């Protein structure tokens, strides 16, 4: 028997009984659709997070105070507290040839007011190089001026959202605002760039780092952001940072240096695992659809006993009948899978309309996995009914009308 004939026969048998076929297709379509859709969502979440990290800037290193890794040696019985990072530490990093930009960061929240309006806003203290490191763009005015980082200046740059809330549609550049007990002149407004991981760039006020330290009455930094001259320089920059800080901190390795690559790789792994997990959970519905296929095929076999008897009478051996019924459940699940893909495509389209910022793209593997699992399930669960059909006694099957 030719493969095209088998397929045609199976297809006709499948479409010859529309109601049961539609029900079965529905179950398969929901199964496949949910696998594809959930993996699309999972992958979208991964892209979203990776995208957020990437927007931090390229070739980025983050220097944190304190050490998060164990390095062996005796436990810190004396209770060593890590030294704070200071502006001077940050400026010392400029000595490295592997480093292009250094942006010390001091962060806190303070009430910001202008006229009658007061808002609690994140205050970010930094230096002009933050502009390059975070790849910021200006909407109006200019960024922080090149001044001695250890000295403050009463100027500030507003995030897009903060500007809108404090000034509405009024001109902001040149105006004065109050941050805590201090007065600052607005010299620029950031353009709307959106969110960067952990920090809403839109809802922010950026001031010189020393001014921020005065506002929060501290001498320490939250972290230092460093941009290496290029990708290859990242390991060298890491080494230099560690050496420079160690020299400055009396020989103690009391900082942690995170490279963006490492963070990205970790998140990539986490989200890929998450996507696979969610897709596996969704594939449980495929198993349910498989059981439905088995059920429906069993009914089909008992409804079509005389057809099976006839096929045997006109010369189909048991193996051929097995093949025909298996092909029928494979065809059914394949059509169901196609409907599932369409369903997933429609759902993805709707979601992309509702959440335009969320990067939705169906991973190619999920298409193959969805369809593949559906067909394999269909065939597996089709084995039992097909065997039953193949074993039917032709005389008994033909004795009924």
């Amino acid at each position, binding site marked *: *028997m*030719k493969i095209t*004939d088998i397929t045609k*026969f199976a297809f*006709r*048998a499948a479409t*010859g*009984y529309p109601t049961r076929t539609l029900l079965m297709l529905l179950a398969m379509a929901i199964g496949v659709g949910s696998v594809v859709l959930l993996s699309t969502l999972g992958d979208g979440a991964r892209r979203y997070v990776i995208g957020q990290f990437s927007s931090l800037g390229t070739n980025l290193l983050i220097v944190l105070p304190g050490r998060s890794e164990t390095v062996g040696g005796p436990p810190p019985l004396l209770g060593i507290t890590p030294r704070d990072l200071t502006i001077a530490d940050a400026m010392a990093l400029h000595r490295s040839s592997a480093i292009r930009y250094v942006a010390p960061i001091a962060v806190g929240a303070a009430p910001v007011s202008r006229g009658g309006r007061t808002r609690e806003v994140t205050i970010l203290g930094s230096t002009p190089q933050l502009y390059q490191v975070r790849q910021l763009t200006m909407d109006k005015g200019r960024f922080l001026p090149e001044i001695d980082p250890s000295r403050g200046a009463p100027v500030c740059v507003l995030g897009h959202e903060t500007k809108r809330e404090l000034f509405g549609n009024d001109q902001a550049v040149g105006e004065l605002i109050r941050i805590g007990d201090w007065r600052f002149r607005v010299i620029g407004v950031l353009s709307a760039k959106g969110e960067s991981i952990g920090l809403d760039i839109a809802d922010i006020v950026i001031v010189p780092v020393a001014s921020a330290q005065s506002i929060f009455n501290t001498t320490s930094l939250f972290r230092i952001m460093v941009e290496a001259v290029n990708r290859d320089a990242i390991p060298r920059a890491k080494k230099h940072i560690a050496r420079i800080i160690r020299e400055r901190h009396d020989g103690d390795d009391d900082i942690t240096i995170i490279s963006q690559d490492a963070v990205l790789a970790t998140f990539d792994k986490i989200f890929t695992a998450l996507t696979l997990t969610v897709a596996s959970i969704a594939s449980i519905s495929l198993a349910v659809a498989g059981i439905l296929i088995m059920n429906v095929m069993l009914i089909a076999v008992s409804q079509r006993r*005389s*057809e099976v*008897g*006839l*096929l*045997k*009478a*006109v*010369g*189909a*051996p*048991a*193996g*051929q009948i097995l093949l025909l019924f298996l092909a029928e459940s494979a065809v059914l699940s394949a059509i169901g899978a196609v409907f599932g893909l369409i369903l997933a495509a429609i759902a993805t389209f709707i979601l992309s309309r509702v959440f335009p910022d969320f990067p939705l793209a169906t991973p190619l593997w999920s298409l193959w996995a969805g369809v593949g699992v559906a067909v394999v399930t269909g065939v597996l669960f089709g084995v039992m009914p097909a065997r039953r059909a193949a074993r039917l006694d*032709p*005389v008994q099957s*033909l004795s009924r*009308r």
Partner: protein
Amino acid sequence: MISLSKIRREFQVGDEQVLALRDVDLTIKTGEYVSIMGPSGSGKSTLLNIIGLLDRPDKGSYLLEEEDMTDLDDRQQAELRRHKIGFVFQFFHLVPRMTAADNIELPMMLSGLEPKERKDRVHAALASFGLSNRANHRPDQLSGGQRQRVAIARATIMEPHILLADEPTGNLDRVSGQEVIDIIEALNQKNITLIMVTHDPELGRRAGRRINMLDGRIDSDG
């Protein structure tokens, strides 16, 4: 040439063993026209099924064209059914979702003939059975006589040597029944062995050789 000797077939019905065939000996020559008659339960259908390789005897030997059928496996028997034997049933047994043409094509599809040849043969068969304008009708759109003609076309499309008919007119009115009989008798004229099981004595008398069965035995033969 069909040669049965000491064919025995038992069925288990509930607790009871029913002997459907008790050591039947029968030889049918190629091209013969044989009718098998007898009351219900006399074993005539069982005999037909054993000759048609749809059923296996419990004892005895069956030679079809000098070849022993009793120890063939399922695949080999199916092969013989496909090429040497055609069945015509009382209830036609057409596949309801298929058109007349597709039903006739079915045995050729199962045996893997080329689509071109299949089409030609179906075309010829439809024409010779007067069904050309019914090719694309499904069985439920055909009359009883037309259905049986489609079934005969299907049974003969592989050019079998033996045609087995189980009450072929049992479900037809007089006129269409006569048409069907004319067709299968014409096939017999072309040297196809025709074995027909029937209740109808009038029909049975038409055959050159009449076998009467009673309680699983051949009661009269001639």
